[in-house]
């Protein structure tokens, strides 16, 4: 299973990076989301998968899975949520202001704005 998941990590990474390199602001935000998922899977895979039951004590389980990646991922999920929300509102605002979500056009728009005011 680990190899398959590793391949999926690679796919998600590739898609995430590809989206980040596009010009559409919204797709960049989506790209970061996918990238986060890839990182989470990577962290999980690092500690080997399904080596025991859930990391809960007192239930008589012989083996449990590594709890540390889970703790890391939990933190990451929440931070990622905050960042995604921030990005989203940022691009929303940028669209409102400049009427585009295209990074290239945004640049010319904002310089036009500045040029007009000077």
């Amino acid at each position, binding site marked *: 299973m680990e190899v*398959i998941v590793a391949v999926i990590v690679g796919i998600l990474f590739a898609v995430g990076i590809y*989206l980040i390199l596009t010009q559409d602001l919204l797709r960049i935000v989506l790209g970061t989301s996918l990238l986060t998922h890839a990182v989470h899977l990577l962290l999980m895979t690092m500690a080997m998968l399904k080596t025991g039951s859930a990391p809960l004590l007192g239930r008589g389980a012989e083996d449990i899975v590594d709890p540390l990646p889970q703790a890391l991922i939990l933190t990451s999920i929440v931070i990622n949520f905050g960042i995604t929300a921030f990005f989203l509102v940022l691009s929303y605002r940028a669209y409102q202001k400049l009427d585009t979500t295209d990074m290239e056009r945004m640049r010319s728009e904002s310089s036009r704005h500045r040029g007009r*005011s000077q």
Partner: protein
Amino acid sequence: MSLLHLLTLSPFLLAALIPLLGKAVPRLHTGWFAAALSALLFAALLGYLPEVRAGSPITESFAWIPSLGISFTLYLDGLSLLFALMITGMGALVAVYSVAYMDSSKESPTSFYVCLLTFMGAMLGLVLSDNLLTLYGFWELTSITSFLLIGYRHENYRARYGALKSLLITMTGGLGLLSGFVLLYVMSGTYRIRELFEVGAPLASHPLFLPAMILILVGAFTKSAQYPFHIWLPDAMEAPTPVSAYLHSATMVKAGLYLVARLSPVFSGTPEWFWLVSLGGLVTLLYGSVAAVKQTDLKGILAYSTISQLGLIMCLLGLSSLSGIFDGEEQLLYAAAGTAALFHLLNHAVFKGALFMVAGIVDHETGTRDIRKLGGLAQVMPIAFTISLFGAFSMAGLPPFGGFLSKEMFLEAVVETLHAGVFDLHTWAALFPFVAWIASVFTFIYSALFVTRTFLGPRKKAMRGLKIHDAPALMTIPPALLAALALVLGLFPGLAAYSLIQPAAEAMMPIAAADGGRIPVEIKFWHGWTPALWMTIGIVAFGALLAWSARRWAKLYAFFPRRLSINRFYDASLRFFERITVWVTAFYMNGSSRSYVKYILGFMMLVLGFILFNSTDVTFRVGAYAQIAPYEWVILLGLAAGGIAVPFAKSRPVAIILTGTVGYMMTLMFVFLRAPDLALTQMVVESISVTLYLLCFYHLPKLRTEQQAVRFRLPNFLVAIAVGVLMTLVALAVLGTNPFEPISDYYVRESYESAGGKNIVNVILVDFRGFDTMLEIMVLAVASIGIYNMIKLRRKATDVGSRHVSHDGDESDEDAAVFRHAQYGHDGPTEETLDERGSAENEQLEPLEAETSESEGGKLSELGEPDDRDSASPETEVPRMKGGDSDA
């Protein structure tokens, strides 16, 4: 902290207080504070004289950066004291002079005196430092203050040009100096000058000895304007005249000489040091004196004259290094060159200071410094004329002034090289007296031209209408004092010789002093008919003849090829570097953030790939993997398919929903991978995120309908594929490589024992790694504040109806909004949009919470009965998000 430290640092303290004092006592010119402090420091340093003269230098140490072995050690011996007295004494006179020169009603002198005082402190620190690193620090500080003072009238292009030029050249030399110091440290293991002396002979045989010497000399030569680094000094004359008198003739340019004198016990006795220093000085002496004659600006003459005189002293310092290889009688003969250097150093500060101040007076009274427009001022400015006569006589080396004595000593020293017979001197020694004599003739000529063209002859037409008179007393007294001192040094040389010069010479040449006890410094007027005296007579005769006929042969200067001048080279190289810089920067800083992302990824791939394929510890393990259940296949394929589909989605909502699908698949993955807490959190977060995305479109209907597929771009595609492959390899490598014991065992063991919780993940989050969680909450808080502000600003912008107004107008509205917010806090105008968003989110959150608690009973019961702490994760996560938002 000792008194000496306090004295050294007091100029910095006053510099910090000057702006306040200027406000507190507006009627008093701020220059008086600087003058008072300088005079005070001069008196205080004079108090150390008996002790230093008796041969017991003062050392005061103060641990500054103990971990790096850098202590702020001050060391006051004869050499340091000579310089320190020159710095503070000239400082006091220049400050008094500047009070009259700097009209406080026209320009604010505050920044001028802040720089001047900072410079004085830096210069004092430089000559008193015993640690090479602190010395370097002060060295650069003098360059910076010099830069600021040259550019004091920065609205003038020439001032900016001169300031930059001096900074670039002296800073380049400074870097050389630093490297030289570091090499000295590598060789000797110490940064303390005193300890460096004790290392002695082994240093000279070290392979790094010569590079260190050359680097340090580059520093000293750039600072002391030695050929070919002299080009910054004439341009530095754009500084106000008090600055030229102080920094660019009396003190800062002598820092290079100080360094050479200070370190000569380390380097002297080697042929490289002798030839580099003495020949460098000799060439500078000749070049400066020849170039000074063709100058038409009074300050230009003085600038080239300063270059020439600095070369003279440098040459003497080089000659004095011969004392290191001789014994007895001969050693003292060459040590006399060192004495001459120090005496001339003092004389030069005195007469050049006076002449600069006279140039300032002439400029101040007539409005020009061009000798072609000046003339015949002796009748109307008798005092200035007298002062300049004293100064020029001393500069030309005529009796009965101090300059005559030191010039005689110089000529004697160069004649003495004929008898040395070491370092190939038997073939080349004749060079020294010959060049010295020619340079002295030119020195006589420019001294004569300085006086005659300004003060004698007929008044020029342009000047006739002006009512010219002597400068106010405040401006006249400092140069008059210096002129008097030039005479006193000539008539009673013993005054300075035994008190100042002798201790300084002994500090500079400890070997000579150790042998003969004290270095004899008897400076006399009459030596008999020595070669030096005949040379002087020749200089006066030829000099007078050439000065008289100067107008006739001055045309010869036109034959100097201007195209090959060093200034041209400097300007061309500056333009060249500018163009290169622009080109290189434009090459990679193209303003597109996507390119920057690619750089980051490229670097990451390079480093990761290198480690992955070059490390022998990395193995790709095979076998013993977990089994995949059939339903897990579905999820895995779903993840892959969902991910791949996102870039192909034409419309944005579809892309969002596909991303959401991947998120929910992840939730399921977490369930299968025995991570119930993650599954719950992921589900909550995914739901909110998708809702947020779609909410965006609710407010921006245009964006929803806009169809735009992602255009295929091969470079991006390749980068993405490469990163993907690399990350797969990283994942596999991590699986196969296990060099350390996992730290997870500790958490599993201690979770119940130490923290009393059974859900290990939660225990790690809230207990073992509680700080991480706190910082995570902070991230959320920062994000919420950011979001809140963006929403708020949007509302202001639309509400005021200023969207059609210019961008800057918008910004000021935004600023106003922020300001209002800061003022009113929550009582400020309510924000409809914010409430809307907030309530929308609350609506979303509440059902989710319900769902969460449901799932606690439902899904979790499948996985096991949670104890009290177990439910912490989903419950803390959700309120945390809410809390973060509502906090803002």
